[in-house]
């Protein structure tokens, strides 16, 4: 987290994410689903973009493609200056390891690992020594207010606490793209709000970009911009409020 506040202007004039004409089809023949029907999207550095829309409109599909876990059927995808479409599978794995943080609706913590060990996983994947990785992860968890639950297993934590562990895990290796799919939908209003505040505080930085998929209108206020999707297309992109509205 040491570099959190360092401004990196190398990319100031570039988009963190640049998507052009992306389509995605699942299945074939009679069971063919057109999840994305030509999406264009730009996300500049230093911004939190929210992706909203009805269920099944393709939000998850789109962020999966941007995060490099899913191949588009067609179109261009540039993320942090890399062409994901041209990238080999092996390089894409390393790209995700080094550059992308994930927050999932279902947390996806490893149930056998403690909070701090879970938060350290991306560093372990990157080959850090366990002791060192756990130290750094403990720092991050402390910042997120979980300093007293480091040794708890996920099953011993509340949903809000688990999601905070997931945030710590998503940020511990200082990725420049953070992708969150419904980070608050399993949480109550207060925890949802805390979660978004934390994401905004620690993740929205001048050299980073954050994409949040959400159904949760209570958290729209955290967005810099809001992209509304409908049936595999982006219908409109509007500016969200820059400051959260006081509760």
């Amino acid at each position: 987290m040491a570099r959190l506040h360092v401004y990196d202007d190398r990319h100031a004039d570039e988009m963190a994410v640049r998507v052009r004409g992306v389509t995605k089809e699942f299945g074939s023949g009679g069971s063919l689903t057109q999840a994305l029907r030509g999406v264009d999207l730009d996300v500049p550095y230093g911004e939190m973009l929210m992706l909203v829309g009805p269920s099944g409109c393709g939000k998850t599909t789109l962020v999966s493609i941007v995060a490099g876990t899913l191949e588009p059927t067609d179109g261009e995808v540039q993320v942090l200056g890399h062409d994901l479409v041209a990238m080999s599978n092996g390089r894409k794995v390393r790209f995700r390891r080094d550059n992308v943080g994930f927050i999932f609706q279902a947390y996806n913590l490893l149930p056998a690992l403690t909070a701090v060990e879970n938060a350290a996983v991306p560093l372990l994947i990157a080959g850090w020594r366990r002791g060192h990785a756990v130290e750094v992860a403990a720092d991050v968890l402390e910042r997120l207010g979980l300093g007293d639950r480091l040794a708890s297993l996920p099953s011993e934590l509340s949903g809000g606490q688990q999601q905070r562990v997931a945030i710590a895990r998503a940020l511990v290796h200082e990725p420049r793209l953070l992708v969150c799919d419904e980070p608050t939908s399993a949480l109550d209003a207060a925890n949802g709000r805390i979660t978004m505040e934390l994401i905004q505080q620690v993740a929205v930085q001048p050299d980073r970009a954050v994409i949040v998929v959400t159904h949760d209108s209570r958290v729209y206020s955290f967005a810099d911009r809001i992209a509304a999707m409908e049936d595999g297309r982006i219908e409109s992109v509007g500016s969200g409020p820059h400051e959260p509205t006081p509760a």
Partner: protein
Amino acid sequence: MFWIAWKMLIGNRAKYLGIVFGVVFAALLIAQQASIFCGLMSLTISQIYDTAGPDIWVMDENVQFVDDIKPLSDTELFRVKGVPGVDWAVRFYKGIARARLEEGTYEQMILLGLDDATLVGAPQQVFLGSIADLRRPDAVIIDDAGYKRIWPGEPFQLGRTFEMNDRRAVIVGVTKASRTFQSFPIIYTRYSQAVLFAPPERKVLSFVLADAQPGLDPEEVCRRIEERTGLQAVTQEQFTWKTIWYYLKKTGIPVNFGITVFLGFLVGTAIAGQTFYLFTVENIRQFGALKAMGTSNWMILFMVLSQAIQVGVVGYGVGVGMAALFGFWSRTATRLSFFMPWQVLAITGAAVFVIVLLASLLSVRKVLVVDPAIVFRGG
């Protein structure tokens, strides 16, 4: 990452124990059955090792194993003695005799006749009476298990008599002897005496026991004996292997044990494989999350393999340990022969390795093809 794999594995106690149980089951069954098999095989060669002294056994060229007696004529002893490189050579009688006990009942016995002058091949563990007394008329030494078989519940007593071929035999000693495959009582006596005890036959010399001159290779001396006499000459070790091979090839014993071992292998693989598969499927989202976060397929493969090896090592240790305990117990409590040489441990280890490898390969495919994007799907 291997540490994470390990944590994942033992984190699910029930599944972990299930997989380990499968491996333990297989290892136990394989090691135990193989050891009983080796025990049986060691019975077949016990008489060769109990005949201490000679390096070289000379016999008819058609003899296939130690109990396969094809008598030679007495003159062969002198021909063997005449072969250059032979230090000494003596006669040795081995046969089955029918004994008539005082009570009037009959009993089959293994009769061994030792060279009158040297008593080469004499029993090594006489604990009652003495070997020297074998030189007395009609004298025999009997093994303790045989004594108990003939006179169950009675204390060892020298001077007891029975008849073989209408001749009186007097017990002058009791010895410990390794158990034999036929498990008849073993009777030691002098060669000249054995010939009288034995059923009359034209030729009686079973084996010529010989030794190579110091500094000469016994195998080389065997070759010379065969060349000069047309007999078959083998070293003690060659004779044991010859005997074991005979039982392996000509009897149903290996097949029976082989089937049990194979079943243990199959059942162990099935249990371990299925539980491992369920374990992997249950953890598929976790593996998916690790892949999404940038874990390569190679690393995932190594993680699954490390989990497999971990259960393999634990299951092997417990299974082989239990087999050894069983052997320990069976040695004192039953007449089962149990022998666990390192080869049994190696074979069991190899089988366990194959089992966990199969078990993990079955599931690893599932993990390798999992789309990291599944982690975005609800759950």
